[in-house]
């Protein structure tokens, strides 16, 4: 029987950097808005830290977007591709 891994690998992609840049916000401003440390924003953006459900909801309320628009278990397509994609007939 194989031994269980010591750590649980979770892959969670996010669009926080893009969303923050679109709104011309600094990490400090976003951190203050959701009540966390500015370093935590950096960790979230780099994917080094995964948010709790509560923090995900706070971010969702701040950006006025559903959670699945910000976080995904599969890589996001570029926003431009999503917006301007030509529908096939």
């Amino acid at each position: 029987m194989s031994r269980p891994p010591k750590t649980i690998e979770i892959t969670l992609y996010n669009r926080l950097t893009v969303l923050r840049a679109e709104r011309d916000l600094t990490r400090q401003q976003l951190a203050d808005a959701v009540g966390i440390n500015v370093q935590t924003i950096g960790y979230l953006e780099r994917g080094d830290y995964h948010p709790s459900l509560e923090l995900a909801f706070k971010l969702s309320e701040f950006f006025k977007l559903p959670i699945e628009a910000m976080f995904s278990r599969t890589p996001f397509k570029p926003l431009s591709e999503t917006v301007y994609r030509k529908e096939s007939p």
Partner: protein
Amino acid sequence: MMKTQPEPLNFKLARVTPLWAFKQYARRALVIALMLSPFALLLAPLISSNNQLFAVVLASLFLIGYIVILAWLIGATRARADSPDAYLDEREIAMRNEVYLKSFRIIGALVSVGFVIFTVFPDAPVPARGVFGLLFPIVLFLPTCVLAWTQPDPLEE
């Protein structure tokens, strides 16, 4: 009128800590210095030979050095190892808890090694009081040291 909470003392330390101490390599050097300082304190009587006054001055200097290094370490880690939940966000709480787990494992390993040594060599000429005297200042601030050692450099904006 809303009463503002006074800033905790260990948070003030972050402001008086030199900027270079926030870098990971500097924090690691400070941790090594802090770990060695109790041993340096023991050397004071040896270096000063028979001069009692010199021994006291030397020991005082080592003690002041220990306190300054400790203050810088607490400041460089922004006292996250000792802060209550109210002052931390969820990532910092998780990080603090992990630091305490690592510290517990280190202390457990040190106690186990001590137990084995004193069991194998029951007549060892090392007084248990002296060993605990050396370990006490190390173990007391171990979570801060582990955090200072493991925490990466702060991310740039």
